[in-house]
C-alpha cells in the first residue's frame, strides 16, 4: 500500500464478510422453506428472510465497492484520501443504517419493492451517506497528483449508481409505474453502472497483476464499458415486456438484451487476453484466480444465462419463475461477489504486510465456493424448468408444482453447503491477515518493479 489512508478499506471489507455470512444464513432459511420446512415462520417469515437476503447482498456488495474505491482512488491519484475521519464517519453511518434496515425488516418496517425494501425515511439517510462517500472520493481525485482513466471510470460508476437510487425513492399510486422506476434503479445498476465499477476495479487489478501497459488496458476498458451501455440501457426493456409497458418494449428489449452478453464477453476476453499478454510474475495467485473468475463467471451467469430467458417468447413462460433465480444467483456471484473477493484478495496482503498469496485455504475457498454456486445454479435451473413446464405449459396449480419441485431444493441446500464451506475458508484467510498496519507501507513497490522486467 502506498498511503496510510488506504487502510480504511479494511473496515468495509470486514463489514462485507460479516454481511455475506448473514446473507447465506437467510438463504438457508429460504431454501428450507421451499423444501417444506418453515419452522421459523412465526419468527422469520419467508418475506422477511427474502427481503433480508436480497438487501444484505446489495449492502455487502456496495460495502465492497466502497472499500475498493477507498483503496484504489488514493493509489491511482497518488495522494492520501481527502479525509480519514470523514471516511470513518461514513463507514459507521453506513453500517448503522444497514443494521437498522435489516432489523426493521423483522418488525415489518419495509416497502414491498424487491431489492429496494428499505423504507423511504431510511432512503434519505442512505442518500446522505452516499453523498458523503462521493465527496471524499471526488475530493481525493481533484486534489490528487495524478489522474487515470481507471479511477474516473470507477468514480463515474459510483456517481451514477448514487444518482440512479433517486428514481426509486419516488412514490406512485400505479404499481406499474412504480415497477418502471424500480428497474431504473435495479437494472441500470446491475446491468449498467455497476459494470462501470466492475470495469474500473477489473482494470486496476489487471494493471497491477498482469503488468500489461496501462494505456492498452484502459483503451479496452473504454470499449467494454461502451458495449455495456450500448446494450444495457435499452436492455432495461426486458423488464417492461409484461409489467404494463407498451408492446414496442418486446422488440427493443429483446434486441438489446440479446446484445448484453457481448459486454460480459468483452469483459472476459479483456481479462483473459491481458493475463496472456502479461508477464505472470506477480505472486498473488489467489487474487489472479478471483480476477479471472469474475470475468469468466460473469459472462456465464449474467451473459449466457441471461440470454437463455431474455427473448420475449421464452420470457413469457419463464418470467416470475425460479428460472430467474437461477440466472440471478450466478450473475451476482460472477460479476460482483467474486469481484469484491478479488479486490480483497489483492489488497489485504498489501494492507497487512502478510503475504498470503497462494495457500491451501485460499484455493479451497475458491473452488468450493465456485463449484457450490454452480451446483446451486443447476438446482435452480432444474426447479425452474420443471416449474415452467408444469405450471405455465401444463397448467397445474402453483402449490401442486411447489410440492413436486421440493427435491430440487434438497440439492440446492447440498450445493449451498459446499458454497458455504468455501466462504468459511475465505473468511479464515481474511482473519489470518489480521488488521492493516503502517508497517505495510510501500509494500507494493516490490511488485511494481516486476513490471519493468
Amino acid at each position, binding site marked *: 500500500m502506498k498511503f496510510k489512508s488506504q487502510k480504511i478499506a479494511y473496515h468495509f471489507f470486514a463489514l462485507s464478510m460479516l454481511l455475506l455470512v448473514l446473507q447465506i444464513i437467510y438463504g438457508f432459511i*429460504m431454501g428450507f422453506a421451499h423444501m417444506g420446512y418453515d419452522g421459523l415462520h412465526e419468527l422469520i417469515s*419467508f*418475506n422477511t428472510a427474502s427481503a433480508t437476503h436480497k438487501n444484505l447482498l446489495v449492502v455487502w456488495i456496495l460495502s465492497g465497492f466502497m472499500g475498493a474505491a477507498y483503496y484504489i482512488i488514493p493509489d491511482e491519484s497518488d495522494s492520501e484520501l481527502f479525509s480519514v475521519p470523514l471516511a470513518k464517519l461514513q463507514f459507521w453511518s453506513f453500517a448503522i443504517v444497514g443494521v437498522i434496515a435489516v432489523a426493521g425488516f423483522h418488525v415489518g418496517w419495509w416497502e414491498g419493492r424487491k431489492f429496494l425494501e428499505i423504507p423511504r425515511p431510511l432512503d434519505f439517510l442512505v442518500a446522505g451517506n452516499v453523498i458523503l462517500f462521493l465527496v471524499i472520493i471526488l475530493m481525493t481525485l481533484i486534489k490528487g497528483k495524478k489522474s487515470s482513466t481507471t479511477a474516473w471510470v470507477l468514480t463515474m460508476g459510483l456517481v451514477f449508481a448514487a444518482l440512479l437510487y433517486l428514481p426509486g425513492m419516488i412514490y406512485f399510486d400505479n404499481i406499474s409505474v412504480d415497477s418502471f422506476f424500480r428497474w431504473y434503479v435495479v437494472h441500470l445498476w446491475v446491468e449498467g453502472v455497476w459494470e462501470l465499477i466492475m470495469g474500473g476495479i477489473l482494470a486496476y487489478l489487471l494493471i497491477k497483476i498482469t503488468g500489461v501497459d496501462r494505456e492498452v488496458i484502459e483503451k479496452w476498458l473504454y470499449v467494454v464499458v461502451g458495449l455495456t451501455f450500448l446494450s444495457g440501457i435499452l436492455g432495461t426493456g426486458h423488464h417492461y415486456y409484461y409489467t404494463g409497458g407498451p408492446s414496442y418494449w418486446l422488440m427493443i428489449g429483446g434486441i438489446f438484451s440479446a446484445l448484453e452478453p457481448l459486454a460480459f464477453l468483452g469483459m472476459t476476453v479483456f481479462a483473459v487476453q491481458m493475463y496472456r499478454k502479461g508477464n505472470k510474475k506477480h505472486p498473488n495467485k489467489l487474487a489472479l484466480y478471483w480476477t479471472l473468475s469474475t470475468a469468466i463467471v460473469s459472462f456465464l451467469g449474467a451473459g449466457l444465462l441471461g440470454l437463455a430467458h431474455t427473448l420475449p417468447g421464452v420470457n413469457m413462460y419463464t418470467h416470475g419463475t425460479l428460472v430467474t433465480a437461477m440466472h440471478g444467483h450466478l450473475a451476482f456471484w460472477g460479476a460482483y461477489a467474486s469481484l469484491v473477493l478479488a479486490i480483497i484478495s489483492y489488497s489485504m496482503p498489501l494492507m497487512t504486510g502478510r503475504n498470503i498469496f497462494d495457500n491451501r485455504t485460499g484455493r479451497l475457498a475458491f473452488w468450493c465456493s465456485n463449484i457450490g454456486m454452480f451446483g446451486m445454479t443447476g438446482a435452480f435451473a432444474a426447479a425452474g424448468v420443471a416449474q415452467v413446464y408444469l405450471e405455465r405449459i401444463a397448467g397445474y396449480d402453483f402449490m401442486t408444482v411447489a410440492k413436486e419441485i421440493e427435491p430440487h431444493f434438497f440439492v440446492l441446500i447440498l450445493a449451498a453447503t459446499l458454497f458455504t464451506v468455501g466462504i468459511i475458508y475465505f473468511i479464515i484467510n481474511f482473519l489470518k491477515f489480521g488488521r492493516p498496519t503502517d508497517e505495510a507501507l510501500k509494500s507494493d513497490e516490490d511488485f511494481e518493479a516486476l513490471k519493468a522486467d
Partner: protein
Amino acid sequence: MLSKQQAKVFFLGGTLLFLAIFVGMSVHSLMIGIPENTNDSDITEEVILGKQLWDENNCMGCHTLMGEGAYYAPELTRVYDRKGAEYIRTVLNAPNGWAPRGRNMVKYDLTAEEVEGLVAFFEWMNRADLNGFPPEPSIGN
C-alpha cells in the same frame, strides 16, 4: 488499430445516444403506454389502499405480481379471474392464517375496509393489458 481516444468517443457517444433514446421511450411509456394498458383512470381510493397494503406488508416477498416477486407463493396478476373475490376475502380473513398444503402465509389482521381495498386492487390488476402475460397453459388444466 483503435486508439484510446477513439475508444473513449465510442463509449461517450454510444452512451449519450442510447440514453437519449431510452429517455424518449420512457416518457412515451409513462405518459401514454402504461396509463392506457393499466387503465390508470380507474385507480380509485380503494385500489390505492390495496396497493399501499401490498407494499407495506411486502406481499412481493413471497408472491409475484406481473411476474415480479419472490416465487414462494402464487402469481396474483389474474387471481381475481382465477379464484374470484370471495376466495380472496376468505384467504385474507382466515382466522389462523392461510396455510395451503402446509405452506404458511403470514397472518394479517386486516379490517373489512382493507380487505375490500385489496380485492379492488386485484380487480384493477386483473384488467391490465400485460402483452399476453401470464400465458394460457398450452396443454391445459
